[in-house]
């Protein structure tokens, strides 16, 4: 399955809570259904992104890790 990413954010090196704040800002600019991809190195971002997605209703459609870099894909909620 291939997915089209509307925007990609490189938040490597930033510490909590900056990744969440920058993601919330970027999400504002997307249209419903569009995907935002985020790369971060703060280990706290794993629970934070999960909780942020639940709290705001923007689904976390992918998350993973590769060599200390965490990768998330969030979908802008439809309404």
């Amino acid at each position, binding site marked *: 399955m291939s997915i089209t990413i509307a925007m990609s954010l490189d938040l490597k*090196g*930033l*510490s*909590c*809570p*900056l990744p*969440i*704040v920058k993601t*919330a*800002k970027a*999400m*504002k600019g997307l249209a419903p259904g569009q995907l935002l991809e985020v790369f971060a190195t703060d280990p*706290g971002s794993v629970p*934070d992104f999960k*909780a*942020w997605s639940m*709290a*705001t209703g923007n689904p976390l459609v992918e998350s993973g890790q590769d060599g200390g870099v965490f990768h998330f894909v969030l979908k802008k909620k439809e309404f």
Partner: protein
Amino acid sequence: MGNDVLILGGGVGGTIVANLVAKEVADKARVTVVDSTGVHVYQPGFLYVAVGRQQPAALRRPESELLRHEVNLVVDQATFVDAANQKVVLRSGRTLRYDELLLATGSRTVMDEVPGAAGAHDFYTMDGATRLFKALQEFKGGTIVIGVAGIPYKCPPAPVEFVFLLDDYLRARHIREQSQIKLLSPLNRAFTIETTSKLVQPILAERGIELTGFFNVETVDPIAKTVTSLEGETIAYDLLVLVPPHRGQKVIEDSNLGDARGWVPVDKNTLRHSNLEHVWAIGDTTNIPISKSGSVAHYEASVAADGIVAEVKGEKAPAHVYDGKVMCFLETGHGQATTIRFDYDHPPVSPSPSRLWHWAKLLFNKTYWHTVPQGRLP
């Protein structure tokens, strides 16, 4: 090998470095501090000014009284750093050359970056804290909302401390029952550090302070008296207190020494500028992903001072590096406090709040003037 050590900023970091360098190499180098006001301000006291527990005058001392006699103080505003030619231009038109330059200019608050927030209160400047206390004295009940309008900001525990001190203040005035305190947090917890959050959240609940998570303040409507988050939530207030957005000083931005927000990129261990020779930065000034606080500037100062001294003496760089050490007190109200101590590799474990830490904080605030700027506290 240099003999002109120039320090921009007479705050906690710049003052300690000036004194430590002068103590070591006053015979080999001329140490100069450039400060725009010549007045040293103890910023951690703003929190207490905001709730009427501290007089503004007690937080100010002439910078000249805190510097060793070998240090030159120039009261002027640095307007441009010409790193290629190792010169700094001052507002008066005067130019100072340097062999080693320390950027300790700190941060500034920019509330006007938040649409509608011009009239919001804050406790991040002396004027803001003084105006906030005046508003609190006139407050007769209603909803006080405390939110964060930009990251990073100085003293990460301050909003949590403020709500606890505010709770104490409203109780003392017997208007707590008519009042609601709402703390809006950028994350789904009270504080960035999880262990500290776990400690303070039950106390917030016990005091009836309402916590709203994932509320990153985006705009304020001063007519409707509402604040709206990036996440799309809107909350009404009677009195709004915001942590304003922060950025680096204008001289950093105008001289192109920092990133888009004016934070200076440095090596997080040596505190040398990432791209420029003979330039150092400490405290709020840097882009290091660590708290912006006097405590960080304090611990970084001896590292930068040792590095600068080694340059002046023409010696090898010292082994002494900054390990990310931070130590803060966190007021939890009712005359109690806890502490937050950590470094790059060790997350904090805060002790249970007690009267001991509250008194330790007050003692530190009082003895600051005779210990910290002089570099007497390691």
